[in-house]
């Protein structure tokens, strides 16, 4: 199942509808060659990144890739070994966490167990020495925003997981931070609640016009909510871009394989021309694809092809088709909303292809061991050089 298709089928493609914010010239948050090592190894490695006002930015990566460390450095809970972190153009070095106009929602929620909901949310405002009336008014407004009216007197241990999550969110939002950091905010929720909460978070961010930076290991979550995603691995940013950009134009095999499902076919560039290039692949025959900018004859490249961009048919495609290969179906997985096929090509490659489940399964014409043709246009695949 690919992330894109999942979004369309479950209707979670809201970010495609709202227009991305107009990007100001100056970034709100800037990481400049930031490094951080722990005794266990390097967590963040000379990382540079700009995040702009009003953005919903997601740091996505496998666990241990340094994304939480990056977030904690911005909050001031860890100090970078080298490099600078700037907020509004000002270096944050030396500013302790309590002086930063940044709030964080912790993965564990870190609610104060000895305080009730109201006092948990009011905690940050009390530190600012606001009047009692203003604190009460802002807490009440925030609790209604996260739909927790009537829960003021409850203690954290009397709340459900979802309610606790909303208290944590209210507590970190009530100070109207310049940046809200969310460390795996939905990880502790069950799947249904997680999907609902994704929408709520996006609405809140739009409504309040704040900058959100979220850390997640869940690519669907990142794709659904974020305006831009930074994909991290081993302390480095592998690619930064809008969800569609990262999915459609991955810059490396690592990204192509990390985000969604992909067929990766290794080959050598045979010839280049203005329209594209010919690639000789040992396992799938010669292929045609649109050329990446830095590619010349003889280079080793990888053709990355998403399974849902492959057409599957029982008949030989028309000669006008840019690419086609043939093989035998060796595996069909019925996934409800779509069907995933594995086709063993004559040259040896096993190609993945998915088809939407448009007809009833009994009427599916393609069966195991059938001979099929796979075809795709020349701009369906991406040629990767690393």
């Amino acid at each position, binding site marked *: 199942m690919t992330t894109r298709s999942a979004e369309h089928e479950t209707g979670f493609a809201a970010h495609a509808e709202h227009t991305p914010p107009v990007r100001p010239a100056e970034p709100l948050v800037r990481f400049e060659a930031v490094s951080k090592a722990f005794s266990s190894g390097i967590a963040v490695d000379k990382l540079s990144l700009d995040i702009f006002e009003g953005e919903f930015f997601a740091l996505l990566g496998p666990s241990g890739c340094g994304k939480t460390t990056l977030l904690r450095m911005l909050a*001031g809970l860890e100090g970078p070994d080298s490099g600078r972190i700037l907020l509004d153009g000002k270096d944050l070095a030396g500013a302790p*966490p*309590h002086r930063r106009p940044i*709030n964080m929602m912790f993965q*564990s929620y*870190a609610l*104060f167990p000895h305080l009730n909901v109201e006092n948990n949310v009011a*905690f940050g405002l009390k*530190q*600012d020495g606001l009047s009692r009336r203003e604190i009460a008014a802002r807490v009440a407004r925030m609790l209604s925003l996260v739909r927790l009216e009537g829960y003021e007197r409850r203690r954290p241990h009397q709340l459900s997981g979802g309610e606790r999550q909303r208290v944590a969110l209210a507590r970190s939002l009530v100070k109207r931070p310049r940046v809200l950091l969310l460390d795996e905010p939905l990880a502790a929720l069950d799947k249904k609640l997680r999907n609902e909460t994704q929408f709520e978070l996006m609405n809140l961010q739009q409504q309040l016009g704040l900058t959100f930076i979220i850390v997640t290991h869940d690519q669907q979550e990142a794709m659904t909510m974020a305006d831009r995603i930074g994909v991290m691995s081993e302390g480095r940013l592998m690619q930064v871009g809008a969800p569609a950009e990262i999915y459609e134009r991955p810059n490396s095999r690592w990204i192509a394989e990390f985000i969604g499902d992909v067929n990766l076919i290794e080959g050598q560039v045979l010839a280049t021309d203005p329209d594209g290039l010919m690639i000789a692949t040992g396992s799938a025959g010669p292929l045609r694809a649109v050329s990446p900018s830095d590619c010349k004859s003889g280079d080793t490249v990888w053709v990355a092809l998403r399974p849902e961009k492959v057409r599957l048919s029982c008949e030989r495609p028309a000669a006008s088709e840019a690419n086609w290969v043939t093989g035998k179906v060796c595996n069909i997985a019925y996934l409800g909303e779509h069907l995933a096929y594995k086709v063993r090509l004559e040259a040896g490659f096993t190609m993945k292809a998915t088809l939407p489940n448009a007809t009833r399964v009994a009427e599916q014409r393609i069966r195991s061991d059938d001979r099929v043709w796979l075809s795709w246009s020349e701009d369906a695949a991406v040629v990767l050089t690393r």
Partner: protein
Amino acid sequence: MKSVLPGARIGGARVVVLIPYLWLVFLFLIPFLIVVKISLSQTAIAQPPYTPVLDLGGGWQGLKTFAAALSLDNYSLIASDSLYLVSYARSIQIAAVSTVLLLLLGFPLAYGMARAPRRWQPALFMLVALPFWTSFLIRIYAWINILQRDGLLNQLLIMLRMVDEPPAWLASDTAVYIGMVYSYLPFMVLPLYASLEKMDESLIEAAADLGCPRWKAFWLVTLPLSLPGVIAGVLLCFIPIVGEFVIPDLLGSSQSMMIGQTLWTEFFLNKDWPVASSIAIVLLAVLLTPILFYQRMQTRDLSERA
């Protein structure tokens, strides 16, 4: 068959529950009632050294004369003779000061232990508990050696040229406080450590993140969350220190006695069992409030965790 099995199981459960109750009845309630009875008797040169003695052979009439002979004279003696009142007051004062000192010393110690790297914590825990491996009496005798005029402490002070004349430490309140703090420190540190150790470090981070400086986060988060540990530690020290006998007897002055010493004197020197018993009963009444408070805290802690 059907009805026998569950019935048998309930019977077994009852026996298990009965054992602690039997223990309490035979080793606490009955001895306590005996002490209450003696406290209402008069001293006598006899064996046992008090009257009346309950003689069940006398029947109903005997029981009546026995009850008529009981009186509250010992309690009025305790209330009227300032010796006892001063002794009680002094015990409570020493216990209160010792407990405050223990808290001031024990809290940073427990906090340091709880914040130490995980792999050190068993070793640190062991260091706090280690004195229990030596007899309490021997450890107090060791303090006599340390505190006496030519003892280790004075040798050290003279070596460091901090004093010219060796001061007399023994037979003073200072020595009593040193002994109390030394002996009861584990009872303060261990409950504090237990409550601080299970505290989530991210709560302090959250407080800092919400604009609270570290010292303030200690007051607003760490301290309130360690309060059950503080209360447990305070009561575990205060209650036994009030009745402490060995430490003031070996390290303190004979001029001013704690209530435990007064009781000992009445019992062993004056052979006045009734007065000694009434002192014990009054001491129990004095300590009943903190004991009940401690019990309530424990039950509340348990029910909140469940």
